[in-house]
């Protein structure tokens, strides 16, 4: 997040797009509720009529994968009516002319045709967002998991910059991170192209710095993304895969392909706290320990580094991940001798400028938000205050492109996937919790009653859902949360694995798959 969770409370307008906030980030939803209580306008754009839509001043359901068009339409109206922050645009940004040229054709009428959102609603959103003193954007996987994921994010950045809603309190472009420490994992260089703190591996200075600190020779080449790794296993260019705390057999698109790739590995190692479907395919399973069994830090969605403390000893033979990694490294011939998570944290501070001032003694209480470059720095509540990382903020002129797969007579339904409030990701943890699993214990397909009646199915009936990549059986739930022509499935359930159906088409830049859009057929189960 560019800004902090609590700042949302004082926003005058919050635009939530592609985030089922009450289900997936309830404590962020708390702040949205409070902002609303104080009179903020709430705009929700989501193909499903999610919980938060009930409270929205304006709720719109855009057609799947049409976010760029919707945002361009909003920008078009803002510029046409002069609701942009001209001072901010002139002082802090560049590239507005190109943007203006591109969005010229995105009239509310044209955008309405693409997105299914009425022209009046587009104008209303533009007015609420464009005229607010402090407006925040909140988004999640509904924005990123598309072949145009990067375009979607850039479009939201355009909207924020155009209206001067970056670099000040209660504004910003705020992606909500899913796992409690996914921000931390990225911060630590858990990406193919960067060292800790987003220091590019391709920069010779960075390479030298880490080579000397780690007394090792390091590559200046960008590594493989998850999807590249899987195709590498399939084509034999990759021999071994070490999977930690990830369950691609359920979380990655096109499960049949994932399974084939994992089975082709000469060595598959899985490190997890539970025996997952991915672990079932592994040659070696290493038991990790849970949050309650270890010391360390988590970095949350607002860049806040917080201590976690061991409450119980690791169960069975499990060990904290850092100990397992250290032990493997030692046996592979690269010596590591950290004696505690704190020793690792000290090294992080030493080699990572944005974590430079973060040490355990400063993490008592509520922790610290990076960037925190030195011991006296209080941490950073919101980013881009006086300048962007590159200096001026760059507008990107972006054209709308349709999703990789669209409906046709053979596969007439749009399928989108997502999460429900009691389960997390592939359910490895939450489905092991008796109370959570009792609340929702099996997968389901949300379908509009009109479509259901045309198919001749009754609520609760099991149906076959078929895509170009696979088919599954699942029971049905009738609801107008989805409009006719759209169906939804949560992907938490291995018995009705939604990702057997989803499309592995990738965003060309981020290589994120289009998990949120594919075409399916729904049939009565025999």
């Amino acid at each position, binding site marked *: 997040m560019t800004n902090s969770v609590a700042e949302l409370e004082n926003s005058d307008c919050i635009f939530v797009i592609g985030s089922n906030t*009450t*289900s997936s980030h*309830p*404590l962020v*939803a*708390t702040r949205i*509720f*409070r902002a609303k*209580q104080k009179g903020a306008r709430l705009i929700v754009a989501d193909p499903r009529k999610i*919980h938060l839509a*009930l*409270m929205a001043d304006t709720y719109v359901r855009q057609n799947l994968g049409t976010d760029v068009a919707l945002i361009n339409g909003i920008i078009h109206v803002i510029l046409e009516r002069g609701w942009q922050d001209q001072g901010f645009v002139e002082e802090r940004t560049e590239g507005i002319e190109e943007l203006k040229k591109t969005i010229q054709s995105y009239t509310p009428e044209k955008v309405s045709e693409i997105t299914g959102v009425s022209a009046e609603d587009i104008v209303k959103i533009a007015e609420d967002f464009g005229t607010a003193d402090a407006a925040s954007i909140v988004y999640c996987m509904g924005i990123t998991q598309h072949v145009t994921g990067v375009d979607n994010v850039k479009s939201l950045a355009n909207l924020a910059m155009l209206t001067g809603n970056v670099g000040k309190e209660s504004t910003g472009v705020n992606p909500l991170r899913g796992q409690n420490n996914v921000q931390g994992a990225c911060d630590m260089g858990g990406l193919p192209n960067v060292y800790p703190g987003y220091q590019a591996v391709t920069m010779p200075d960075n390479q030298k710095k880490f080579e000397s600190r780690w007394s090792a020779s390091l590559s200046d080449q960008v590594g493989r993304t998850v999807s590249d790794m899987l195709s590498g296993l399939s084509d034999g260019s990759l021999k071994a895969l070490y999977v930690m705390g990830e369950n691609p057999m359920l979380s990655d698109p096109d499960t049949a392909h994932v399974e084939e790739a994992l089975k082709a590995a000469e060595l598959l190692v899985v490190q997890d706290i539970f025996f997952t479907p991915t672990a079932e395919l592994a040659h070696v399973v290493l038991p990790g320990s849970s949050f309650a069994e270890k010391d360390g830090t988590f970095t949350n969605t607002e860049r806040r580094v917080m*201590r976690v*403390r061991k409450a119980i000893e690791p169960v069975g033979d499990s060990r904290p991940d850092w100990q397992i990694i250290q032990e493997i490294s030692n046996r592979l011939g690269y010596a590591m001798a950290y004696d505690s998570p704190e020793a690792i944290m000290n090294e992080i501070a030493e080699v990572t400028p944005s974590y430079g001032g973060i040490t355990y003694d400063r993490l*008592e*209480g*509520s922790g610290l938000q990076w960037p925190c470059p030195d011991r006296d720095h209080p941490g950073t509540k919101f980013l881009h205050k006086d300048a962007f990382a590159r200096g001026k903020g760059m507008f990107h002129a972006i054209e709308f492109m349709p999703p990789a797969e669209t409906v046709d007579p053979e596969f007439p339904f749009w399928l989108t996937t997502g999460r*429900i*409030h*009691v389960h997390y990701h592939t359910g490895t943890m939450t489905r092991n919790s008796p*109370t959570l699993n*009792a*609340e*929702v214990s099996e997968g389901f397909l949300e379908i509009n009653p009109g479509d259901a009646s045309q198919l001749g199915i009754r609520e609760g009936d099991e149906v076959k859902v078929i895509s170009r990549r696979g088919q599954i059986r699942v029971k049905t739930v009738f609801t107008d949360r989805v409009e006719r022509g759209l169906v939804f499935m949560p992907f938490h359930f291995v018995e009705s694995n939604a990702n057997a159906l989803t499309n592995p088409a990738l965003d060309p830049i981020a290589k994120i798959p289009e998990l949120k859009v594919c075409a399916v057929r729904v049939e009565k189960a025999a």
Partner: protein
Amino acid sequence: MIKEVKKRVKELLDSGKITGFLGLRDMNGHVGPHLFCDGGDLEALVLGDRERPGDSRYPLNKQLIHLARSYPEDTFGVLVRGCDERGLKTLSTWNQLHPDKVVPVGIACPQELAEACECLRPYPDEFVCGEKVEGCPYDSVAQLDGIDLAARFDHWMREFEKCIKCYGCRDICPMCFCKECSLESNELIRTGDIPPEMPLFHLTRAVHMAGRCIDCGLCNEACPADIPLRTLYKKVADIIDEEFHYRPGYVADQKSPLNILSQPGVE
């Protein structure tokens, strides 16, 4: 204030009157519940006033029930404010705690907290520190009673609509001790929905609070949707008082009329 509390706890522990004292501890910049078992180790004991009086409270009575079940022969001390003491008295009438096995160490709440809580009696019968301040009326209830029924219904439905069904209100409630909970029953309230069925979910809980809720307000503090549950349960308490002349925990050994009704031989 803390000095007097520490002194009293030390006496109780040193004399062997109690096995442990269930209170609050400040550690690593956080306040949390802790069982103090050594009179010489009370350094970190706090009353839970971080930025404002009473802003860090926990359902110590609920934890006390678990302790009592695991160590039925032992006597424990516990930190109580007025509401907590009402809780102890009520839990004893519901056979969840044995009064002989509990030694309350009381503190009286300051005016600020009493007002914020709209607490009718912001002090326990006996307290080792603090000043007795006047009780405060249920203004939040009066305010809602002042609007017409349709608007009031809308108000509550809008509040219930925010519910994310986290069960936080129930889980933190010191008076929720049932082994099976109606709120989890698919037959009564369909599971899996958010918001949960409205107003059924919240009214089911409200009815179960009748004759039980001791107005500690922990549910209100725990609610991530800021639903003013405390106001709802205050209203329920008013109704029970009007109908049965009973408020939970104000008089020792007085049972809830809803507890008595089910006993054989009572008409």
